[in-house]
């Protein structure tokens, strides 16, 4: 049974079904619905806009080609599936760019809860700028842990590193962000 495209459009599952059936316009609608979210995700990982837009195209091409593999598991599953495809593509892109997990020489400082709180209160633009300033390894682990809500074990398996490396990279990333934030504060004052 064909789903009338213009009437349904608000249920994820129906949109995916319409795409699978090859209804004209269904793919375009799926793209328009999720493109922004995926673009921001790609931007967080890649660190620059050009790469992010290329990744966005790659993600949707791959998603449409493998749409038959998708299993609907309730509301939000399309977004989660696309997000997962995006993460895989971003990591593949970073691997091509020789992702390295370097440890910068930093002074060991105690985290202050105040800084972390301020980090949470930042706007998306400022936060994105700070994330872009992170070294690639820190950024990748930070994104996977904070935004994809992965455990250190999962991150270690995905990036082929040890759990301790993942923990260290996250710790250093947080520290780096707080340091950057302090510098920004000083500049403003």
């Amino acid at each position, binding site marked *: 049974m064909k789903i009338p495209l213009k009437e349904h459009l608000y249920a994820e599952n129906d949109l995916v079904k319409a795409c699978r059936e090859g209804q004209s316009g269904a*793919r375009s609608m799926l793209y328009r619905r999720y493109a922004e979210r995926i673009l921001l995700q790609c931007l967080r990982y890649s660190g620059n806009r050009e790469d992010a837009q290329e990744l966005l*195209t790659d993600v949707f*091409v791959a998603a449409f080609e493998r749409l038959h593999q998708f299993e609907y598991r309730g509301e939000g599953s399309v977004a989660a599936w696309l997000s997962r495809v995006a993460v895989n593509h971003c990591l593949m892109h970073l691997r091509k760019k020789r992702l390295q997990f370097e440890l910068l020489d930093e002074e060991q400082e105690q985290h202050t809860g105040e800084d972390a709180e301020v*980090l949470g209160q930042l706007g998306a633009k400022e936060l994105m700028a700070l994330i872009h300033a992170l070294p690639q390894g820190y950024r990748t682990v930070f994104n996977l842990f904070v935004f994809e809500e992965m455990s250190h074990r999962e991150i270690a398996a995905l990036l082929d590193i040890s759990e301790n490396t993942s923990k260290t990279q996250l710790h250093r990333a947080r520290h780096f962000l707080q340091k950057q934030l302090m510098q920004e504060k000083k500049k403003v004052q």
Partner: protein
Amino acid sequence: MKHDKQLRKTFDEAQVNDLVPDFDPDAGWEEVSRRLKPGRRRIALNRYLPYAVAVAAVLLLLVRQKENASFTLVAFRKDATPVQQPERQARPVLPPPDHSTLAAKPLTHPAALPAAPVVNPVPLPVDTGDRFIVVEASTVLKEALPVKHYADIAPVLPAAEELPVAGGQKKGFWRSRIARRRIAPQTGTKEEAPIRGLMYALNKE
């Protein structure tokens, strides 16, 4: 953890226009659809290929059944002329060898050959049973040897002073070299037998 949640919320609520001001979803979609076009063709091919194959198979069967004769005609044309094979020529039949003439010819023992003055001594191998030694042979001996045989062994042989006298690696070296040239000191051919006899006689003298 609490702050991580806050960070996620910040990005969830973020508008793409704040971060990527001139993002154009239409242009993005055009690019995606352009990249997907070959995929569409492939999908269409996958969808219709089985039908196309089935139809082609049925057509082929029908053609075969109806026009079987014409296939035969194509395969065996009536006016085709067979290729002329060249006739084999009969081999000339040779007469059987006449063994009686061989028996009639008396064999001369090399030792019975007339002695001649020794000029230009040539080192030649003599089989003494164990290993090679070098003797100086006379020109008579040189003449007595079959030319082919002499030509075969002469370039291989080392000079007398070069040949090691006793043991060690060199002996094996020369032995292997000689063996490689297929001049077996121990097992001579029938043709070599009289020559070995002659050499033995000369050595004894």
